């Protein structure tokens, strides 16, 4: 067979190329139909083929990370006595304060309204220019708040979220992106005041565990299953996707979902051990130099 790229005549070259392309497509079609026929009679063959041909993705070729937690007694002992043990062991009800950066715009207030709806027992407080973060933290501690969320704004849109666990819990700063409010989601459902269930996916490393526990401590301990509402925080490649759904079981195998509430994405920028302190030590800080490989993730 002559190499197509050596033919100088464009018409002839195009003709031959089309023939080659069609032959390839036909070969693929034939292979797939024979495979379908075989597998419809023999489902085990299909399972075998699927099990063997697992495609490589960035997640399943993730770089080896020593901090991934797997049945570690020391980590368990650490988590039994960490800042969230009040929530996990004593069942402390979370009380959240939501505020914004100074001088926010309308979209920030809208997002804050959504956040107040997501987490039960939340209070929104308008940010006064005379109080700095350390004063706000002190006032919240005096009024027995367990968490503070500060929505940061840039160019009229919310762009970051700082989550401070009180009394001296960790402070996490996230970049906020892809915010879609419930009114902008087609076919969205209406929320009820039932306490939601929580799903946390893929928080594997020690850092991921801390962040995962931080999010867990925002929701009430015992969900109300009658409400059939679920909030999901799914971590994939260090991006945490937040979704809220109402589920209904059609039968034992099929579940229908209706999306409620806002969608947004968070990415951890830094984590501090104590409450917010600009000059305090950071336990983890994201720096672009850390992105050494596409298969390296930190959460």
């Amino acid at each position, binding site marked *: 067979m002559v190499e197509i790229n050596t033919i100088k005549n464009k018409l002839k070259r195009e003709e031959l190329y089309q023939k080659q392309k069609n032959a390839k497509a036909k070969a693929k079609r034939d292979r797939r139909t024979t495979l379908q026929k075989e597998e419809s009679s023999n489902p085990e063959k299909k399972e075998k083929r699927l099990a063997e041909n697992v495609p490589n993705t960035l997640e399943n070729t993730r770089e080896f990370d020593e901090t991934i937690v797997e049945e570690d007694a*020391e980590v368990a*002992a*650490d988590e039994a*006595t960490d800042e969230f043990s009040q929530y996990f062991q004593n069942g402390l009800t979370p009380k959240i304060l939501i505020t914004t950066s100074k001088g926010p715009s309308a979209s920030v207030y809208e997002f804050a309204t959504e956040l107040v709806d997501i987490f039960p027992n939340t209070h929104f407080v308008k940010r006064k220019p005379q109080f700095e973060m350390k004063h706000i933290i002190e006032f919240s501690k005096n009024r027995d708040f367990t968490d503070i969320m500060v929505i940061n704004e840039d160019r009229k849109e919310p762009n970051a979220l700082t989550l401070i666990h009180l009394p001296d819990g960790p402070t996490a700063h996230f970049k906020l992106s892809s915010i879609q409010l419930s009114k902008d989601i087609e076919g969205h459902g209406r929320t009820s005041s039932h306490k939601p269930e929580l799903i946390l996916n893929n928080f594997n490393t020690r850092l991921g565990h801390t962040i995962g526990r931080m999010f867990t401590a925002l929701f009430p301990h015992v969900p109300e299953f009658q409400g059939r509402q679920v909030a999901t925080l799914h971590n994939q490649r260090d991006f945490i996707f937040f979704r809220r759904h109402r589920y209904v079981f059609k039968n034992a195998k099929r579940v229908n979902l209706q999306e409620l509430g806002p969608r947004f994405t968070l990415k951890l920028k830094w984590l501090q051990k104590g409450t917010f302190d600009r*000059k*305090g*030590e*950071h336990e983890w*800080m994201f*720096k672009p*130099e*850390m992105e050494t490989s596409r298969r390296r993730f930190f959460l």
Partner: protein
Amino acid sequence: MSSQRFYTGDEQGLVKVVTITEPIVVKPKRVRRNQPTPEAPPKPVPTVETWGVPDRERAIQLMCWDFEKKHLAVARKNGLVQLLDPKEGGVVVTEFKHTLGKEGKVDTVFVGLFANSESIITCTNTGRLVVQSIADQSKTTVLEVGKDICRMRVHPREHHIVATGGKEQELTLWDLKALCKDTTEEIPEPAKKGKKNNKKAAAAPTPVPEKKAGGAEARYKSKEILANGQLFKAKNVKNDHLDLRVPVWNTDLQFLNQYDTSRIAVGTRNHQIRVYDLKGGARRPAIDAEVGEMPVVAMTNGKDGSEIVFSDTVTNVYSVDTLTGAIIGQYKGN
């Protein structure tokens, strides 16, 4: 086959001994053509030995070798100061309990730890310096070295010379022998400014290093007289370009010279590295360099006093030349 051993202490109170041995790499003979590429050499595998059980009350605040490098001194959150024997698997050789209360809203923490064969010297951030004799449990000397101390270090050779620094506390060198003499009497707070009315005769260990001599004294209203036991007290740098007082917050310090107390490096919360030269009698730093953007957290000596390696609050490690104040290198950690 070389190996390195690291001793780490954490906030769970565990001391871990990490031994990393370089594996013996057999260099392959000359690889001929068309041979399969040799495997990557084996990576060094660390072995970890853990001492203790997790307990947050026994969190380790400070850890250091004693002077003879035989025992590991450890200062814990609940006030326990222990000497551990590494050869016996971290067995506690000696143990002392200090009371660390709460000053208002701030916890009292250890800021200085030193041990030699006779005594253990510890200091808390409230300025309570305790010299505890190892042999005799009851022989304890408690001294006051000011308040809001961030770091106390003992000179490696002259174990009676101690340097402290902290928030609004300039670098001060203390002579423990002189301080000890007055423990029975009332110990005044070290003077910052103004003539201090000393009730007792000062031990006068060294002459007060002042910039102006003799006859000019009459013109100056405030003359700092070193309080009892102080060998040297640094002076704040000149006002900045707006003629405002530069705030003082020393976070860590190190003795640069192993034999005498001539050069001391100090790191501050405003990411400055200052080197004081005591030989010339100057109280202001000889070198004042701004390095990095975040406060200095920990400092250590590089090679023989000409280099300081320090870390800041955001995973950076810098190496600074103490003779010029320039950065030699930086590790942008992750």
